[in-house]
């Protein structure tokens, strides 16, 4: 009732805002209808995945949104759990964004499964405790519920309860994020994943994308609401931008390690995959996406903005988010492209397996991204006053 009263007291959105919401929701609906079609006819007919490359494009938005939610949750705890007052003005919107990101990720992975309806029963009644996938899904589902509770407590100003929920969600999501490495590293004994995507890398990436999303989406929120930030919010953005810069520099180090792995095989456990990434067919993704968009351009923009101008920082955030999406795509796909028996002198075995995303995979990914944007706009229409305070 308290939430109802608070939300119904808010001003109604303008027609333009409703129009933006409808357009985004329509694109989301079109994308997700491809997912529904796939669920009915089967991946065999609609996906570009194969026996050799069983994981396709759809793992990318899942990993992206799950890591983004983790990063956002961690940043929100800086203000509401660890008591860093500078970050406090960001807490409510950041928790909301974390919820939306996690929902988008889980929706995407659901559509990636061939028989998702079996999850409902067997994930509960036939769990396999040694499976990283099971733990990850369980952790992410639990943390989604916890973050929703956290958000509701924030709306009703029960800060002590909110802090408790946030702390548990933070611990769970950090564990889930560190689990990502084991999850990928075990697959097919492909050194690419265990070698180059260590837990600290995943955690840094998650917080970095969280910072990028905060910088971008808060600026978008101001534009959408025709509003402007106050001094407290400005301080919070500047602090977030500084954290963003530190993590970008950290990522630059990891990128150098990757480059060395690509050019000097002795630095990599799976030199074939690293060579494919750094100087092979994925080189454009790597140099444009992972190096320029993820690292170089955001660092340049940060210094151009002197860490202050929100519009430029938002652009840096957008660039970083696009680049990170490409990075996750490379992470998922390149690791699978080295043939299983490449050392056995097999006749007519390609040097690398091939994979191209199908229209359905692309549209479902677009649907999940627009689901995130639609929910973000919906949140702005509904909670903008609460976010502003």
């Amino acid at each position, binding site marked *: 009732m308290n939430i109802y009263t608070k939300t119904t007291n808010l001003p109604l959105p303008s027609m333009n805002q409703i129009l933006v919401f409808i357009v985004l929701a329509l694109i989301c609906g079109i994308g997700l209808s491809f997912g529904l079609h796939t669920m009915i006819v*089967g*991946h*065999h007919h609609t996906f570009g*995945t194969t*026996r*050799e490359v*069983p*994981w396709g494009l759809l793992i990318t938005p899942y990993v992206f949104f799950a890591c983004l939610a983790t990063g956002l949750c961690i940043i929100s705890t800086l203000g509401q759990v660890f008591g860093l007052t500078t970050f406090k003005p960001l807490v409510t919107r950041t928790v909301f964004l974390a919820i939306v990101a996690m929902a988008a990720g889980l929706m995407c992975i659901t559509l*990636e*499964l*061939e*028989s*998702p309806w*079996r*999850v409902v029963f*067997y*994930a509960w009644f*036939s*769990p*396999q405790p*040694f*499976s*990283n*996938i*099971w733990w990850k*899904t369980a952790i992410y589902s639990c943390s989604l519920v916890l973050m929703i509770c956290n958000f509701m407590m924030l709306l009703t100003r029960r800060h002590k309860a909110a802090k408790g929920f946030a702390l548990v969600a933070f611990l769970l999501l950090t564990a889930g994020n560190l689990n990502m490495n084991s*999850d990928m590293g*075990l*697959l*097919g*004994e492909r050194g690419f994943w265990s070698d180059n995507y260590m837990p600290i890398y995943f955690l840094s990436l998650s917080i970095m994308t969280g910072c990028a999303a905060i910088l971008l989406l808060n600026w978008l929120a101001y534009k959408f609401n025709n509003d402007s930030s106050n001094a407290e919010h400005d301080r919070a953005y500047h602090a977030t931008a500084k954290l963003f810069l530190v993590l970008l520099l950290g990522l630059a180090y990891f990128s150098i390690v990757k480059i060395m792995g690509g050019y000097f095989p*002795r630095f990599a456990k799976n030199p074939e995959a690293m060579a494919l990434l750094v100087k092979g067919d994925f080189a454009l993704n790597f140099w444009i996406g992972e190096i320029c968009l993820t690292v170089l351009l955001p660092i340049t923009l940060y210094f151009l903005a002197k860490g202050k101008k929100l519009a430029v920082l938002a652009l840096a955030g957008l660039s970083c988010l696009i680049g990170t999406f490409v990075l996750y795509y490379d992470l998922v796909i390149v690791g*699978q492209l080295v043939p*299983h*028996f490449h*050392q*056995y*002198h*097999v*006749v*007519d*075995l390609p040097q690398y397996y091939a994979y191209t995303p199908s229209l359905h995979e692309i549209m479902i990914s677009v649907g999940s991204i627009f689901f995130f944007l639609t929910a973000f706009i919906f949140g702005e229409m509904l909670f903008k006053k609460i976010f502003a305070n």
Partner: protein
Amino acid sequence: MRNIRFNSMRNEGVESLASVDRRQFMKFGLAITGVFLGGSVLSITSAANAYGAPFNEPVRPAQFPYSPHYTMVIQQNNCIDCELCLEACRNINGVPIYGSRTSILELSIPSAQGQQARSFMPILCNQCNEPHCVRVCPTGATYKETSNGIVLMNQQKCIGCKTCMAACPYNARYFKEEDRAIDKCNFCFDTKLKTSGGKATACSAACPAKVRVFGDLTDPNTPAYKLIHTPGNEFWVLRPEAGTLPNIFYMNKAEADA
């Protein structure tokens, strides 16, 4: 005298060795360690009085975790790629045309004389003792049967995440659309193995060249057991670096016997 720093040297693997060298290397490895490249030869060395070379320690007698412990020996140089095994597998196990439980790879291995040695290598699920597919499955849809060590599928539980396909180092799994679940070789557990009283699989029964020799590691009367325990026979497993401890053993039959 120059010091050689063995610890810093890179393992080049056995794949790049010429076949003659490789055989010598295998003998060397077997003699010294009793373990060949991660595929535990302890499980196929039952001679209690065998001694390891460097420390003069007795090799432990065979310890079989399963009884029966089903295995298959592939006599690789006997294979002529007639594909009767694949056909039998399809017919008996209802494998659709777009999938396969087993396949045959054609190899062209550089020989010591600068020539290419052609051979065919049948591939199937290795029924590993440390199966990655079982480890990653979130719902236990794929599991190691405790009575005989076969890696089985419970299709009802499969959610289609395909993590097991990504995790299998042998590319031995495919998604069967009709069942909306993963399908794989199960040594014909529910078909030929049952009807033959545990003596044969569809592929082993169909093979005219005795390439696929099925058997039980705990039963001295099975052909596979006899092959494994024949002195002088050398075996290897696929992708030992994966650490899966496979139960499919490869060998080349001596030319005089072939």
